[in-house]
């Protein structure tokens, strides 16, 4: 059983998405993730992330992990025990300087060694924006493929957490989606997190891996102890449906699962849920194929609506699926305000707003 508990916006509710062992097994075989062939362990999201890094440092002698406070275990416990296990030259603190952290990571990666750079909160990634966008993303192209920093992975806690306010809640994926050369990935739970993070680390392009901080402890699954890889740039249809396509990534996928249940119960409507997983390069084929079938699309993210990644998806889908659309594409997102503190319950794109958008599309 996979159990996933969410507290959203301080109101507190629990969602349990129970699945049978067989369903999990079949899905995992299709995804080439062997949950039951290898041994698994109950892990929450930060433990899954830690496990991925443990596997990496064990198998790749060049791999190092660095950032603020990673030595003692990290402010979210993602690196607990790794310094003792692998040594202080491989898991180390840096000075408090994000542009330095990413620049330093680019340099390590440029020599061919594996660099895992932690930014303490995605909200603080902006001092490193120049290094990420002007340097990392362009390293291979501008050097005629003589140099690259494909061995670089940047990790950062991401998304709302109930009380994070302006600077502990941001979802900045849209800024980076605009920069080709990068890969941007957001997992929805522990099994996804480990498999996607390992794929990012293995991938020979600079990757940014955003970890939904609200799920660090709240999401618990049986996660394989050994390495496994979930492919990047492949969206996943979590639940098939015929009337509406719902697309999200990270925490919001679980909100959409709730919405799908409510839509079925209250409206008799069958929703198809897609976890996009990789924001850049994104899997437009899976989304378009779904919209061709359902004719209706809702995209939902916490990040502000204007210029958010839903805008890109919406634009592409209307280009590719114009004649299949039964209603305008709906975007249920954060407002164009900084992320507020006490007003979080009103700000976030909760299930009621999503359900209302579904209703509007059905009645268009």
């Amino acid at each position: 059983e996979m159990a996933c508990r969410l507290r959203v916006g301080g109101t507190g509710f629990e969602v349990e998405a129970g699945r049978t062992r067989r369903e999990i097994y079949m899905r995992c075989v299709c995804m080439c993730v062997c949950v039951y062939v290898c041994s698994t362990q109950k892990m929450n999201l930060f433990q899954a992330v830690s496990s991925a890094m443990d596997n990496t440092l064990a198998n790749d002698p060049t791999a190092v992990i660095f950032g603020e406070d990673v030595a003692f275990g990290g402010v979210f416990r993602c690196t607990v025990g790794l310094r003792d296990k692998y040594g202080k030259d491989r898991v180390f603190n840096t000075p408090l300087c994000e542009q330095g952290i990413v620049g330093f990571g680019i340099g390590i990666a440029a020599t061919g060694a594996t660099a895992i750079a932690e930014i303490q909160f995605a909200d603080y990634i902006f001092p490193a924006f120049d290094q990420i966008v002007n340097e990392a993303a362009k390293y291979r192209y501008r050097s005629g493929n003589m140099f690259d920093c494909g061995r670089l992975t940047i990790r950062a806690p991401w998304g709302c957490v109930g009380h994070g306010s302006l600077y502990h809640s941001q979802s900045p994926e849209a800024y980076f989606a605009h920069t080709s050369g990068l890969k941007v990935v957001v997992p929805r739970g522990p099994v996804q997190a480990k498999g996607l993070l390992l794929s990012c680390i293995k991938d020979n392009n600079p990757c940014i891996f955003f970890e939904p901080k609200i799920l660090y402890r709240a999401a618990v699954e049986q996660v394989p102890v050994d390495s496994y890889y979930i492919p990047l740039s492949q969206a996943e249809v979590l639940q098939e449906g015929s009337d509406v396509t719902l697309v999200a990534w990270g925490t919001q996928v679980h909100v959409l699962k709730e919405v799908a249940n409510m839509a079925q119960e209250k409206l008799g409507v069958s929703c198809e849920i897609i976890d996009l997983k990789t924001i850049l390069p994104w899997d437009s084929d899976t989304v378009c194929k779904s919209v061709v079938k359902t004719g209706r699309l809702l995209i939902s993210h916490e990040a502000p609506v204007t210029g958010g990644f839903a805008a890109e998806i919406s634009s592409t889908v209307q280009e590719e699926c114009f004649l299949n659309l039964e209603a305008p594409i709906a975007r249920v997102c954060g407002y164009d305000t900084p992320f507020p503190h006490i007003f979080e319950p009103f700000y976030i794109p909760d299930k009621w707003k999503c359900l209302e958008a579904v209703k509007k599309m059905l009645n268009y």
Partner: protein
Amino acid sequence: MLCFFTMQGPVLQQQPFNTPEEKPQFPGASADFVERLEFIQPNVISGIPIYRVMDRQGQILNPAEDPKIPREEVLNFYQKMTLLNTMDRILYESQRQGRISFYMTNYGEEGTHMGSAAALEPTDLVFGQYREAGVLMYRGFPLDLFMAQCYANADDLGKGRQMPVHYGCKDLNFVTISSPLATQLPQAAGAAYALKRENNNRAVICYFGEGAASEGDAHAGFNFAATLECPIIFFCRNNGYAISTPTSEQYRGDGIAARGPGYGIMSIRVDGNDVFAVYNATREARRRAVAENQPFLIEAMTYRIGHHSTSDDSSAYRSVDEVNYWDKQDHPISRLRHYMVSRGWWDEDQERAWRKQSRQHVMEAFERAERRLKPSPDNLFSDVYDENPPLLKKQEQDLFQHIRQYKEHYPLDLYEK
């Protein structure tokens, strides 16, 4: 005398809590108490002294500091410096004639390039800013490839993607130049860290100007290199100007060398127009950086004789007299020539012959580069990722279909197929 400066290292001596005498216990500094209120005055009247080996006439001042570089190698320095100078003149002119789009000369700074490059091992990794072509030339980058990059022709190792002078060469361990300033400093520190772990006797040198040293990335690079104990030489070319901005508007302290001790970095200021001083300092810094796993900061004082670039006319902000002084009275090439002549290693005839020969080599490479086609437009799309995703492949197809339809409006015959 070659001598690096630093402050006392931060080794903290914690006193037991029950001693009668009060000693500071703060984790943040290893220092004594003082009862008199006094601000430390920054010393900018007489700053960190400038190490040099030769005087302006190329005479060795202290024989003990003469690196006694063999004749062949000294000739090599001289020929590389003058070849660079010749290539600069021709390529600057070619921009003026509209043959290449942009160029940056290295006039006056040739000594910083050759002296430092000669002091390194060929396997040491070089991160530059944009005015270090001599380092690449010293390592053997051929004229044809300098030209190919400036012309962005099909021979360019960079596949025609960047503006002129953004050189790079994997085989010569010279990381490709990028336009954003100082981004290379923290990268160089990271590379040095990785090389330290490889334990293969390799160092990193990172070049930057005194203007770039104002960027936040410079602070990041210094601090990371020091705290993470990286075998790196930070080499600052202080040439007096950042485009039009003189040093008096760039910083108020004692240049860049004085910042090193603030980070715990061994630091020195050298006469950048004295190729032997640059050589000695870089050689010693390299030896110790690798042996002791710590960064070194060398501030090479020099003067930018040329304009910032072909987009600049420096007569708008400095006098011709000032420029002429450096060109005539304190130039790395003439100082080295005086040294060579005084030893009987060089004369007027050799000078004439070499000038003619080097100009001929440059002109031949220039003509070859001019005739060469540009790289195929395929190269617009490749290498964005290691393998391009479907989205990019589709965009590429869209472009090529468009070009097929509107081919007379695109300069296709200038490019390879």
